[in-house]
């Protein structure tokens, strides 16, 4: 779509288990910043079934307008249904910017929509700003060992996906006034070519929610083998945290992929990130360098992880970690 007359910053509000995903709320926060820089409005788009209650939340988190598309055909996420509804809305209202959370479903939807609209899409952005001169959105993300900033100068909307934990969730204000617009966009049953027939909850132990963990104890190739992750688990348990891993550890099958931190894993922002036997490759840093406190244990004094660590111990993790656990256990038991 062309750029003429396009206006307003849109956030696709993803609903999962009848709740708005955190990443969508975080995007309302940054969307507000961008909308103010452009002097435009912030709009949240909610698609689902029985979701009327969520519109107020979209406004509380900073939008002027919530557009709500509801219908039984949107009860479950489907590429065809959601792409149809979202592109129809974009064609009707012509937003200038469209932000989508880089979740599994968000990354399924965004490229399909950008393809249909023949517009650019930048994946997994870590920063989004407006250039005051040309008023274009600048999308920044890691690219190899560098960072790149891209623009989408000729087509509209300017689209990007963003992971959770990149931006801060704003504080909601439930007294904010806003407009709720119901849009009726039907999708014919036949046009939805996929159907969820079964949902199998992940078994094997607890689900990992690294994105929300306040403390993460992560291990890398220095852990030497899968069995040694038990010492990290013990430390994490004492601290009430979760266990993360580098890609080297995941590739070696020492830990499941859901634990991977970094460019191709999770982006995390805990209060404390403890890296054990992790060298600190740029792709790993891309997923954890905005943690409040970074602590590194590595026997190589030259390991790049020490360049970002607030507190580094040059030493053998197999000595240090058990001692740490012992010390914290002592503190905990008073």
């Amino acid at each position, binding site marked *: 779509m062309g750029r003429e007359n396009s206006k307003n910053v849109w956030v696709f509000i993803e609903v999962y288990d009848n709740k708005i995903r955190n990443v969508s709320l975080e995007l309302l926060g940054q969307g507000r910043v961008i909308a103010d820089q452009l002097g435009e409005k912030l709009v949240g788009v909610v698609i689902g079934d029985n979701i009327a209650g969520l519109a107020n939340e979209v406004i509380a988190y900073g939008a002027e307008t919530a557009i709500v598309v509801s219908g039984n055909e949107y009860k479950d996420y489907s590429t065809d249904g959601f792409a149809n509804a979202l592109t129809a809305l974009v064609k009707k209202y012509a937003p200038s910017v469209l932000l989508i959370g880089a979740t599994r479903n968000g*990354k399924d939807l965004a490229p399909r929509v950008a393809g249909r609209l023949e517009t650019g899409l930048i994946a997994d952005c870590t920063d989004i700003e407006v250039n005051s001169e040309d008023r274009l959105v600048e999308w920044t993300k890691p690219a190899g060992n560098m960072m790149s900033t891209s623009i989408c100068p000729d087509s509209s909307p300017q689209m990007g996906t963003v992971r959770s934990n990149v931006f801060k969730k704003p504080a909601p204000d439930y007294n904010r006034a806003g407009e709720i617009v119901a849009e009726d966009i039907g999708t014919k049953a036949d046009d939805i070519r996929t159907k969820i027939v079964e*949902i199998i909850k992940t078994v094997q132990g607890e689900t990992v929610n690294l994105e929300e963990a306040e403390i993460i104890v992560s291990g890398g190739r220095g852990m030497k083998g899968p069995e040694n992750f038990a010492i990290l688990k013990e430390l994490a348990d004492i601290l009430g945290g979760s266990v993360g891993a580098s890609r080297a550890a995941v590739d070696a099958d020492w830990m499941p992929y859901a634990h991977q931190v970094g460019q191709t894993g999770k982006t995390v922002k805990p209060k404390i990130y403890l890296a054990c036997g992790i060298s600190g490759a740029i792709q790993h840093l891309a997923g954890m360098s905005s943690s409040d*406190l970074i602590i590194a244990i590595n026997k190589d004094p030259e390991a790049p992880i020490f360049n*970002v660590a607030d507190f580094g111990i040059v030493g053998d993790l197999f000595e240090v970690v058990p001692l740490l656990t012992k010390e914290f256990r002592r503190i905990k038991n008073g």
Partner: protein
Amino acid sequence: MNILVCVKQVPDPVEIKFNSETASLIRACAANIVNPFDKYALELALQLKEKHGGEVTVLTMGPPQAVDALKECYAMGADKIVLASDSLFEGGDTLATSYALFCAIKKTGEFDLILYGKQAIDGNTAQVGPQVAERLGVAQATCATGIELADDKVLVAREQDDCQEIIEVKMPALVTVAKLAVEPRNPNIRRKIAANKIEMPVISAADLEGIDAARLGLTGSAVKVKKMFAPPVRGAGIKIENETADNAVKALVDYLSNAKAI
């Protein structure tokens, strides 16, 4: 059952070395490999073929040396391999890349099932698959960890963070494949020898009927890279060296309690 697998040749991440002085990656000597997720896609395609018959074609778009990636796929068991290569394809964003692949697929044949890797580990966008599906006008499913045929549909196990969805997808369909529980098979030695002897026809832009050159490569890209820069450095803090583990741990615990982090 006609299956197409699209693969990309990428630099081997294991070969990429980190230079801690300049804090940059040394890429120069990096060898090229078939994108790991694309190999899982090929493995799934070969398993489906073994069970249900049919033909597996592998397509890549890339520089002339990408033929090595195709030969590896042939050695793993692909029936046909196709290389699309032209300087006009170079430097495209996912919109331009998906347009070129769409045109190349149209020229290559008709397929019931098209498999992609979930993402290419060099760019990591995970966008090309869905964008090709859009251009072809077929149904899609992303992040599959398993596929089974069911008449005119496929059953796809799709990974979510906290569950697995089983979804039924009407064919023709494009499915992107994540890490599988099994590793891709090794190349077969005889097929490896045969692969080396293959004379590959190369599809150039001119071979693709009705192609619009303005939509290819850098010219056809909606996204323009404005600048590249070194990542901001987060200053290093305290570093405890040449201390006993006991003392180091005590110092760390003091540090954390002073910072009120615990």
